[in-house]
């Protein structure tokens, strides 16, 4: 009896106004803390990301010594990216200033969130020549095999993205097939145990290449010369 009396008021005394104000107050405090940290770390994170992106570019374009970011507009085609524009692709040039490959970003829904990759494209051979994962939340040990599985990575030594004879689209779109069923050079051998993640890579590559490869081939002359001298200073 006594116990019931002492227990009850404790439960009822707290009005919903107090509950609400406590939660809202706490929420605002937490939001403030996060905002301060975000603002404080943003420049450094942006710098590190840019550095990591540059490293990734040199990894997906073998033989590249210099790289330039290009933006794309439908009327003008490609031109060196201005500061505030977003880059459409990155061109890699060798010592002599000749184009050795292009690096493009692609993104798609994986198993746990968006996967962002950077892939290398060789416009002369018309093949994809490798990729680097920029961002992933895939399950460690399963989905992250897309970065580690040697058999899977072997798909990207020369993944066929040839133009069709008519010249306005790809001959065959890149697609992920079940592990062990790869028959054509435009197919990606999937990973058992990482079906969704490996299919996501194929889907985003397929989508990105069928959009960009025709555009690149059409405007290849705008990319084929190194324009670094003036771009480097900026």
């Amino acid at each position, binding site marked *: 009896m006594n116990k019931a009396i002492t227990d009850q008021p*404790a*439960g009822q005394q*707290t009005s919903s106004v*107090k*509950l609400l104000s*406590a*939660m809202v*107050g*706490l*929420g605002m405090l*937490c939001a403030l*803390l*996060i905002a301060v*940290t*975000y603002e404080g*770390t943003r420049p*450094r*994170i942006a710098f*590190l*990301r840019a*550095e*990591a992106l540059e490293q990734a570019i040199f990894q997906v374009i073998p033989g590249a010594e210099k790289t330039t970011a290009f933006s794309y507009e439908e009327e003008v085609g490609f031109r060196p990216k201005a500061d505030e524009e977003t880059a459409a692709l990155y061109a890699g040039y060798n010592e002599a200033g000749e184009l050795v490959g292009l690096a493009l970003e692609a993104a798609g829904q994986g198993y*746990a969130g968006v996967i962002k990759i950077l892939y290398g494209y060789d416009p002369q051979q018309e093949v994809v020549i490798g990729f680097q994962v920029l961002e*992933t*939340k*895939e*399950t*460690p*040990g399963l989905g*992250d095999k897309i970065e580690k599985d040697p058999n899977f990575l072997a798909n990207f030594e020369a993944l066929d993205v040839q133009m069709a004879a008519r010249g306005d689209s790809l001959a065959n779109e890149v697609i992920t097939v079940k592990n062990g069923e790869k028959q054509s050079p435009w197919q990606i051998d999937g990973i058992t145990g990482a079906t969704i993640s490996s299919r996501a890579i194929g889907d985003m590559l397929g989508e990105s290449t069928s959009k960009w490869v025709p555009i690149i081939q059409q405007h290849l002359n705008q990319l084929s010369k190194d324009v670094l001298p003036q771009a480097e200073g900026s």
Partner: protein
Amino acid sequence: MDKPANNENNFWQNLANSPSTNDFLKGLWKDNPVFVQVLGMCPVLAVTNTAANALAMGLATAFVLLMSNVLVAALKDFIPKQVRIASYILIIATFVTITDYAIQAISVSLHKSLGAFISLIVVNCLILSRAEAFASKNTVGRSILDALGMGLGFVVALLCLGGVRELLGSGSLFGWMLFPENFQSWIVMILPAGGFFTLALWLFLINIWQERKQKTINHG
């Protein structure tokens, strides 16, 4: 053999007599979060495949634990009983987000190798259990000591696992090769199964030690 053990015992007991030392030390040994309470097993098993990962994960968790303990203890009169768990989770999630940004600002590759496990610190039951069982009932000062002890205990435990797994699985420690070139590494140790083996091994050793200690106390 018995005597030094007893002496050591007395030494620890004398130290432990002061309550604040006890707040700190209990997390290191007596109530070690991993080896005794067996809490927060997800990161313990998942990211201890190298000593460096284990250290980074341990420090990140310890930081979140410390900050959330401080805030929970400081706000304990302000947070109504009915919404306390939600409030604790909110506080913990805030500091996990902050840690996430901080680690990104330190190193992109470290952030990549710890991956999703940083955000999973939110659901590490060690942190919530310290908030609910300790920080919500004690002063800020004692909560800091508790968090430091528990956090350090967690770091040490993760290092124990990460060290053994990296040593056997890759033949190195913190990236330094310790074995000759022809060392055949035990790949299984850096795979998830190795985490279970190593954890079981440590629990086995610690339980043997505890049992022997118990016996000497009972006989003496």
